[in-house]
């Protein structure tokens, strides 16, 4: 009888994680610890990187069965519903919100409730810089193709340059779901690194005189303009690239909640509790897709390299268009605000402000940079729509 007890313990030992841990899983758990350190210790976008890291940790615990790659990534290209019904774990169920494209638009709903498009409406020329900063997306796409990624993968990698987490996740889920973990980590890490990546590029491409340019104060924007704006943008963008409607539509619905002034209840919940709940679910499950097989390979290195290119070229694109506009406007536009066009709201705008103030302490570019900054969100949604339309 004692033998039976030992047998029972033996089975447990067999199933327990210590004996079945693979080398890849061990390495992935260490990677997740590194990401936790970056999130908590270094403040790298902790609201998303911490859940992502913890999801990565949980998914690599042997036999825990919280997430099953095969349910979502298989030959059929569709969710394997019967496998889900049989073996589904907690993170499989929560991941449905990512896979079905529900969470990213809901986060955009909350972002819309927090975004002030006033600076963009006051200075609509900013749209141009928001467009130019998407250059990085397409150059990184090309680079990724060149180093051997498939077109769909390359599109997902390029979108890292959009500097917009939800857009990157939304696009990648449809184009290259097997890269979701790496791409999300790269996107959020680089967004956290914007204050380090951008300044040298901005300084290299501008002269001291350009950086010292002071810009005219923005004109006041009336409430009616702020109300028409979200509807107008939805109309134009959704008509032009219908694939991006879930993102841009929810972003603008949120903004309408905010600007209408009659739906404060909805605006507050959308930008707080709803967004936080979705953020937790999104982060943990996106992290959970990062198993050893999909993360520990050369592709991840390629993603890291091309993601950096995307950010760098996006910054350069924005600044160069800023220079052009500076010339055309007769020196009234400070090209530094162009770099904010990569999105990464509001960090990239702060970087513009900081670099500008370093030359001239009385120079306040923040509000001017907010224009390209929010235009960049719209711009990368458009770019995502194009990639989805062609590559899906």
């Amino acid at each position, binding site marked *: 009888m004692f033998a039976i007890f030992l047998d029972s313990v033996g089975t447990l030992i067999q199933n327990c994680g210590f004996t079945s841990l693979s080398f890849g899983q061990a390495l992935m758990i260490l990677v997740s610890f590194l990401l936790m350190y970056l999130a908590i210790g270094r403040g790298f*976008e902790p*609201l*998303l990187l911490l859940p992502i890291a913890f999801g990565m940790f949980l998914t690599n615990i042997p036999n825990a069965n919280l997430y099953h790659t095969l349910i979502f990534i298989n030959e059929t290209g569709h969710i394997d519903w019967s496998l889900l019904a049989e073996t589904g774990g907690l993170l499989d169920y929560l991941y449905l919100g990512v896979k079905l494209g529900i969470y990213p638009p809901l986060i955009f709903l909350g*972002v819309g409730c*927090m975004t*002030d498009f*006033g*600076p*963009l*409406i006051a200075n*609509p*020329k900013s*749209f*141009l810089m*928001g*467009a130019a900063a998407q250059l990085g997306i*397409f150059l990184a*796409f*090309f680079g990724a*193709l*060149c180093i*051997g990624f498939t077109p769909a993968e*390359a*599109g997902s990698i390029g979108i890292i340059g959009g500097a917009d*987490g*939800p857009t990157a996740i939304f696009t990648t889920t449809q184009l290259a779901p097997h890269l979701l973990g790496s791409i999300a980590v790269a996107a*959020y890490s680089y*967004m*956290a690194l914007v204050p380090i990546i951008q300044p040298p590029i901005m300084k290299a491409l501008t002269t001291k005189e350009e950086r010292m340019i002071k810009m005219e104060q*923005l*004109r*006041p924007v*009336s409430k*009616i*303009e702020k109300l028409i704006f979200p509807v*107008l943008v939805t109309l134009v*963008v959704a008509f*032009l*690239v219908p694939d991006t409607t879930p993102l841009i539509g929810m972003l603008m619905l949120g903004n309408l909640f905010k600007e209408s002034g009659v739906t404060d209840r909805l605006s507050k919940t959308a*930008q707080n509790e709803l*967004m936080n709940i979705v*953020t937790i679910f999104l982060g943990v499950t996106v992290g959970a897709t990062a198993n050893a097989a999909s993360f520990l390979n050369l592709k991840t290195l390629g993603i890291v390299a091309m993601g950096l290119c995307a950010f760098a070229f996006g910054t350069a694109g924005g600044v160069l268009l800023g220079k052009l506009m500076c010339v055309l406007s007769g020196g009234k536009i400070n090209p530094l605000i162009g770099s904010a066009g990569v999105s990464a*709201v*509001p960090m990239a705008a*702060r970087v513009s*402000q900081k670099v500008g103030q370093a030359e001239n*302490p*009385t120079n*306040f570019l*923040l*509000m001017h940079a907010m224009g390209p900054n929010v*235009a960049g969100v*719209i*711009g990368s949604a*458009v*770019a995502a729509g*194009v*990639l989805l339309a*062609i*590559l899906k």
Partner: protein
Amino acid sequence: MSIDFTLAGAVIFTGLVVVFTALVGLWGIVALFGRFFSAASNKPKPSEPPKAAPAPAPKPAAPAAPAAPVAKAAPVPVVEDGIGDEIVAVIAAAVEAMGAGESGGYVLQSIQNAAPVGAAPQFQQVVKGGRPAWAQAGLMQNTQPF
């Protein structure tokens, strides 16, 4: 493996064309209705500026900037004239975020040089119940990853 340069070219070309079309189009439309509405709304404003006048000095609501010399920053009404509370709050938040230590003295200086900006800390005193704006600013800070 052979790269499909045609596809690559099509993606890049189409992408840039569409992105620029969309955003240039939006620029045009927004500029157009902006001109229309700013023309329409330029008249009924003059009644607002006095709102700023009665609260020139007391009780700074936030420790973001030294309050004393601010009172000299005369052109306060500029801020009132249409720029939302939140915009001003965001500027102030950014100033704070940039680190007090790093560029400690600049706030004072800038206030005397650049009137529109100097008005920012001043505004904080006007909006005594200014929490919402600040809460919003703090919130933005907290949610930058999205």
